[in-house]
């Protein structure tokens, strides 16, 4: 009898053949999707980088550089949130639903805090900055990131509500939803780190 899945995998997960294959596919698919979609963020970093050459200096003359204090706090919140997501997922795999629910509640609250600061940053760009690409690219990058963070937060909320309703008591297949949402949230964190460095620290 041949099998799609090598036996190690079977022993490790205890899944039947089709379920194990689905999990394996989902994991690889998620990795490829992340590798692919991060390229959009790179494309936008290229935009920021190339538009700098339209100006003699960056930030352009007469524009005050952005204050990195608030975004740094937001970044810390996001990283903490990602770590909590990781912890909650680990807890769920260990069968501790309560730990998962607490961690994810906290993680989502931190995520909302992060997004609030980002919205604040988006709204309070100075007129002088908005007259140049310095302000416009900030809006592009924060706005573009915000859309992704919002969508993925919605996925997390969906998973969380499922967990509250007891969807992830045991079956590995449903647990993929938790894993997927967690990995998407890491993606949000990684993408933001790229933007954060480019926006606030590379002059």
């Amino acid at each position, binding site marked *: 009898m*041949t*099998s*799609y899945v*090598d036996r190690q995998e079977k022993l490790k997960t205890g899944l039947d053949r089709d379920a194990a*294959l689905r999990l*394996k*596919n989902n994991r*690889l*698919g998620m990795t*490829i*999707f992340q*590798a*692919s*979609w*991060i*390229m*959009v963020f*790179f*494309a*936008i970093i*290229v*935009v920021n980088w*190339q*538009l700098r*050459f*339209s*100006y003699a200096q960056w930030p*352009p003359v007469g524009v005050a550089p952005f204050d990195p204090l608030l975004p740094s706090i937001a970044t810390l919140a996001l990283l903490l949130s990602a770590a909590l997501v990781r912890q909650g997922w680990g807890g769920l795999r260990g069968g501790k639903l309560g730990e998962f629910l607490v961690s994810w509640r906290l993680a989502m609250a931190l995520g909302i805090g992060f997004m609030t600061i980002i919205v604040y940053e988006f709204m309070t760009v100075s007129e002088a900055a908005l007259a*140049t*690409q310095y302000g*416009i690219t900030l809006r*592009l990058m924060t706005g*573009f990131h915000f859309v992704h963070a919002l969508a993925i937060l919605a996925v997390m909320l969906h998973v969380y509500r499922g967990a509250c309703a007891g969807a992830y008591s045991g079956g590995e297949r449903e647990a993929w939803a938790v894993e997927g949402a967690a990995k998407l949230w890491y993606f949000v964190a990684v993408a933001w780190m790229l933007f954060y460095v480019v926006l606030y620290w590379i002059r």
Partner: protein
Amino acid sequence: MATIAVPLGAEIESHEAEAVQRPALSEYLRWSVDHKIIGVQYGVASFLFFIIGGAMAMLIRLELWTPDLDVMVSGAAYNSLFTMHGTVMIFLFIIPMWAAFGNFVVPLQLGAKDMAFPWLNAFAFWLIPPAAIVVLLGYFVTPAEAGWTSYPPLSTLFSGDGQTLWALGAHLLGISSIMGSINFIVTIFNMRPPQMTIWRMPLLCWAVLATSIIAVMATPFLAGALTLLLLDRVAGTTFFDAAGGGDVLLWQNIFWFYSHPAVYIMVLPGMGVLSEVLSVHSRKPVFGYRMVGLSSMGIAFVGFTVWAHHMFTSLQPELRIPFMITTMIIAVPTGIKMFSWLGTIWGGKIRFTSAMLFALGFMSMFVIGGITGVMLAALPFDIHVHDTYFVVSHFHFVLFGGSVFAIYAALYHWFPKVTGRMMNERLGRIHFAFTYFGFLFTFFPMHIVGMLGMPRRVAVYDEAFANWNQLISFSAFVLGFSTFIVIYNIIRSYYRGPVAGANPWRALTLEWATTSPPPVTNFTDDPIPFEDPYGYGTEASAAYLDAVEAAFDGNENRTILD
């Protein structure tokens, strides 16, 4: 000698007894997650777009019959016509057409039951019709007229709403392409049965893998560029508006970072098809299998480093030289493929089937596109012919002489597998003759008018080129006519073609080790591939092929049920 591995055990008896049931035509119009249905859906939809894009090409050539503007009401109408022609042919014909063959053939060749994500597969396909409607709808409002490359500021400050629709549609098609490609990569990595090792994979799978890697890494750049274009058009940003601190070259950079690799997205699967067809129909292993497979990867990799050769006349002069060098380097892996194919047919027993004719036609035409590609890479010469009919000719040699010939070869090669019936070979030969000569005399003279001084994308041109253009237009009409032959052949063969049987070409790859068309689950169990996908000429392979034939085609009076 290796042992003979036959993919079926106890099932042989039951196969012999059954007639082969084809999916009802209505299934093709419905949502389906079967990769074979989706493959056909992709194929038929793309072919429809090929006809639409081809009709546009005929109108373009009609306009260019005379040096003056006479068929079109305005230059702008002509501009929107070739904009649509390019967009339809690239985004709605060639790219989805390869998704068609990839979908149908790759899981079968791997020995898999289906793609890794069947639902995503269907979703990726069903994004195409709405996207196509959005793009084509743009033609009826103030149409996009900035070419398929849509350079700003022409596409931002000087274009109508059709340009916005164009960008939206292209966005959707890009997302569809990314989803399809993720699916291919996961399928190729995860869905192979254990015996199908990576070095036993048929070369089409190698090519689709390389293509998909390009697509997932490059297409997001198109998404980024189109997002900026849409923001500039509807949200009042100034990314491409110099007056607001933007940069028009920004678009060119990001757009070509996708669109040059997109050329390989369009031609690499064709190269994979060629390896299959040449080997099967000349009854000889692919020469240098590993190098052919790896050269696909080489092309994919180098393809990411050449984009700025599209900007030779706009880029800062000091940045041009590095791109000239990378562009020339890409000729090397392409050359490896070319010589390997020659090595494949050299000394073989060539059967002049229609599929083989188109494969040979590909080699004969693509080499011209390759040579002119190197000529265009040579910066000083490119400066002269950049944005002229020389370039038009070059990329049609690559995308028609390459991709379309390969698509036809694939059509004749896999049609029996898809429908269970053979295509008419006589009509196929006539089709080939019309296509080959129509193509050659349409596009070869374009090199000359380009060098003489005719720019591309003009409705009005210097009278000195009138005779050349009449030759080109006449040949283009011949080429256009050839399409009717293949359409007739497809329809006729679908109903009346001789029953094909499982393996009409006696090919060794796994898609032929099942019925034609294959059952819903493709194989009754994990099939065991023959030790070498192209190991023709050995006793083992002959025995394997005989066993396959005995397993599936033992009953002489097989019928196809619709």
